[in-house]
């Protein structure tokens, strides 16, 4: 009984942190209709700055902690003003969510550069000695955590419900266009909500720091827990955020204590999935209208396309160059970089079908690479199954998991879908780390044989390069056949307007499922090849960090083009390989590039290339293209 009480107190402490982050989610969602994933990142930045000031520089805590919070809010407001606010005017909510995922990656990368990857432990504000109430011992920090959350809740409630500013914020939430007509500065309100959310996250971060160990990527756990709490409670409701947070805190602490710490993430994600199935709008229904039913696509969703007369010569040139790469590149490390880019391109093509064409955001795609890679690796190590068969077995297992997941995801759109896939990715992460017997745990699965077909072994980077190149070309040709025909059009129609698509007889469920299964098959295939190429697979090679990187590669390259992902993959794989000392900046760069692409290069690198190609071709080919145009129209008639 006493133990239970002790655990419940622990649960309440953790729960109030979740509640605080959830409050931030709820606030930004209510004002902008978008989800801000970067909050967990700000919590960590605040805690890390607090550590540097308070421990490394020896400032007194009562100066260090508020300074850390202020500095974080400063960083957050600046980032928000230059990224989130301008992006909201242009991007659909699902894309805005990916932008904040980019911000989160960027902040994690920043923390990695500044503080490295080692864990930090902050001293408690009032020392280590707990308060003793009879038999129960409560760490003093617990009061700080619960108190800080309480103050945030009350202040925020007063601000929103009672002040004039709050009225403005609420007006933005319900109808930004009408609000701006009434003289409310919508971008300012957006920035304000972003800043307030950052403030809450920073306060949560510094107060919780002494109770946990901090690492550059702990932020995403705060983000996901906060979101799970918000989703359980009802994303648009403040009381919902608090109830959800406390409930989640108690549930995870009880699971950790009585079952195993391995399952505490799993339980959180399981609760989320159950809530998403049974009551998608959360336990507490809010009076604020949901904006999920509006169209996902904004009018700017144009995709750059090469004219047919340029596409063929350009494709031939690229293919010829690709075939010559192993003869030009002598360094095995850089050639391996090319192979990895080619392997990731397999996943990216699938991801593009899913995201770029069908408009279904996936933040957990690497989870299927993991399932494929670990399945085929495990089978070929322990049962000496031929790699080709093992790959198919991996695809089979991945598809089975995908079918189960799609029971949830097919009911969801936009934000909820993105977060369900993120939750899935994290669930796979905790399995790859946790199931030591199968996956080898954090140190990875070693001794995977090289890829072979019959008795031909592909053990060198050069031979693998051609295997991957062949796979890429075959799959690209096949998918482009489908994407430029009726199948691709049906997916694009669903992405733009589900109801209008259904009214034309397009079975939206079937097509979304097909797109999902294509992406899962390719991710699984690519995960397996990856494992055979490295003869090794570890959780972070196919973890959530990879999922976010894949999204960055796709957006940077240009989505909805199939080929675009290749340039993103090459950029983000080759640059760190070629400039080894810069490798630590990779996470930061992939986040920053993702954000920058959303803002300045909406059609990606590929779009830019297409525009340059068209401009270069125009003066000399003006007559030629006219001829081809009349030729094509003659052929179609």
């Amino acid at each position, binding site marked *: 009984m006493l133990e239970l009480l002790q655990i419940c107190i622990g649960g309440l402490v953790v729960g109030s942190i979740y509640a605080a982050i959830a409050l931030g989610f709820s606030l930004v969602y209510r004002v902008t209709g978008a989800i801000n994933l970067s909050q967990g990142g700000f919590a960590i930045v605040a805690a890390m700055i607090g550590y540097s000031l308070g421990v490394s520089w020896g400032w007194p805590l009562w100066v260090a902690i508020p300074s850390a919070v202020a500095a974080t809010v400063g960083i957050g407001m600046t980032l928000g003003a230059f990224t989130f606010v301008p992006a909201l005017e242009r991007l659909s909510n699902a894309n805005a969510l990916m932008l904040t995922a980019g911000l989160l990656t960027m902040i994690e990368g920043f923390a990695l550069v500044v503080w490295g990857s080692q864990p930090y432990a902050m001293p408690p504000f009032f020392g280590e000695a707990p308060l003793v109430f009879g038999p129960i011992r409560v760490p003093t920090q617990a009061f700080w955590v619960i108190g800080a959350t309480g103050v945030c809740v009350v202040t925020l409630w007063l601000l929103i419900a009672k002040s004039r500013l709050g009225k403005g914020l609420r007006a933005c939430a319900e109808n930004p266009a009408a609000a701006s007509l009434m003289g409310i500065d919508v971008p300012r309100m957006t920035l304000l909500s972003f800043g307030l959310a950052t403030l809450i996250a920073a306060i949560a971060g510094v107060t919780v720091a002494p109770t946990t160990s901090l690492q550059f990527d702990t932020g995403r756990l705060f983000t996901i827990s906060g979101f799970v709490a918000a989703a359980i409670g009802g994303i648009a409701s403040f009381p919902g955020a608090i109830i959800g947070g406390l409930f989640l805190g108690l549930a995870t602490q009880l699971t950790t204590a009585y079952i195993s710490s391995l399952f505490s993430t799993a339980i959180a994600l399981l609760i989320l999935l159950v809530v998403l199935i049974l009551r998608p709008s959360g336990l507490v229904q809010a009076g604020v209208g949901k904006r999920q039913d509006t169209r996902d696509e904004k009018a700017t*969703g144009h995709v750059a396309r090469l004219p047919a007369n340029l596409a063929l010569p350009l494709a031939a040139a690229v293919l010829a160059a690709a075939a010559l790469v192993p003869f030009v590149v002598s360094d095995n490390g850089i050639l391996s970089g090319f192979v990895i880019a080619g392997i990731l391109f397999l996943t990216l093509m699938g991801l593009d079908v899913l995201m770029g064409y069908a408009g279904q955001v996936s933040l957990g795609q690497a989870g299927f690479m993991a399932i494929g890679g670990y399945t085929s690796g495990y089978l070929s190590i322990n049962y000496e199954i031929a790699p080709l068969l093992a790959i198919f077995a991996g695809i089979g297992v991945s598809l089975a998991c995908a079918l189960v997941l799609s029971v949830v995801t097919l009911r969801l759109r936009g934000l909820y879908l993105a977060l369900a896939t993120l939750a899935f990715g994290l669930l796979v992460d905790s399995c790859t780390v946790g199931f030591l017997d199968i996956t080898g745990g954090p140190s990875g699965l070693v001794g995977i044989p090289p890829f072979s077909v019959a008795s031909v072994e592909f053990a060198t980077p050069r031979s693998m390069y051609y295997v991957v190149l062949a796979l890429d070309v075959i799959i690209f040709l096949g998918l482009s056949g489908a994407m430029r025909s*009726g*199948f691709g059009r049906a997916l694009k129609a669903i*992405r733009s307007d589900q109801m209008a698509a259904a*009214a034309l007889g*397009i079975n939206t469920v079937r097509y979304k499922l097909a797109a999902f299964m294509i992406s899962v098959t390719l991710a699984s295939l690519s995960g397996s090849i990856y494992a055979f190429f490295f003869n090794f697979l570890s959780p972070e090679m196919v973890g959530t960090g990879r999922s976010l990187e894949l999204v960055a590669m796709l957006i940077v390259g240009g989505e909805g083009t199939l080929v675009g992902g290749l340039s993103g993959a090459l950029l983000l794989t080759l640059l760190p390989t070629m400039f080894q000392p810069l490798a630590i900046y990779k996470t930061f760069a992939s986040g920053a590039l993702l954000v920058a692409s959303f803002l300045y290069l909406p059609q990606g690198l590929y779009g830019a290339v297409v525009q340059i190609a068209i401009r270069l071709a125009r003066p000399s080919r003006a007559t030629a293209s006219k001829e081809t145009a009349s030729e094509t129209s003659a052929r179609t*008639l």
Partner: protein
Amino acid sequence: MNAQPDMSVDTGAVLSVRNLTKSFGGLRAINDVTFGVAPRHVTALIGPNGAGKTTVFNLMTNLLSKDSGQILFLGRDLAGMSAVKIADMGLIRTFQSARVFPSMTAIENVMVGAHRLARHSGVSQTLWLPAARHEEQRVLARAEEMLELVGLARFKDTHATELPMGAQKLLEVVRALMAQPKLLCLDEPAAGLNDTETQELANLLRAIRTLGIAVLIVEHNMSLVMNVADQVVVIDSGAIIASGTPAAIQTNRQVIEAYLGRENDAAS
């Protein structure tokens, strides 16, 4: 054509709506509505704002669920069918606010319309099978003809949302036509169109009738309705108050009252 209220429960009707009723809360939005759409006819559903016309459309395609009544399309009850199934049977509708697909060009928008007629699957498209590619070329050729027909050929490669409003509405009608519907339901196709565009729409509607497609049209533009409709059904406050030929409707006292208000409202 006779002018008396035509109950159209005859089996020859493409669509017959029988005793349709729908309430929102305590408000009875649709009250015992019965009408039919005859083959090769343009039937217009008219009425003042808020009369329940779009609600009838949404009940027909099961976007809303009805309280009671029956909707038969080609003799089959539509109860419980999904929007996809209904479209698949050949009942294609457009929306009041032109719902073109914004990320697609005009020609792609029109080509999507052919979806329900496609015989070749994504698999054969993936394998670049000749049959699938021929089908694709046929669809492209037909879509180009369609754009030509409504004078939008020059916008072929323009993104749909960059078209003027009138062109978007025409595009939506053409997209629906690509599906070769057995019944085409148009929800206020002339709203937002200028006079020339309305004229083009009228020509298009007559052309559609000659193709043998039955049309049900909800419309505010009276001159268009009187111009092209064979049969007019007038609905007010959720109930049918008159139906008949355009000529008969124009002189119907109840209809005039519904639009212009009653004289001596207090006395009656």
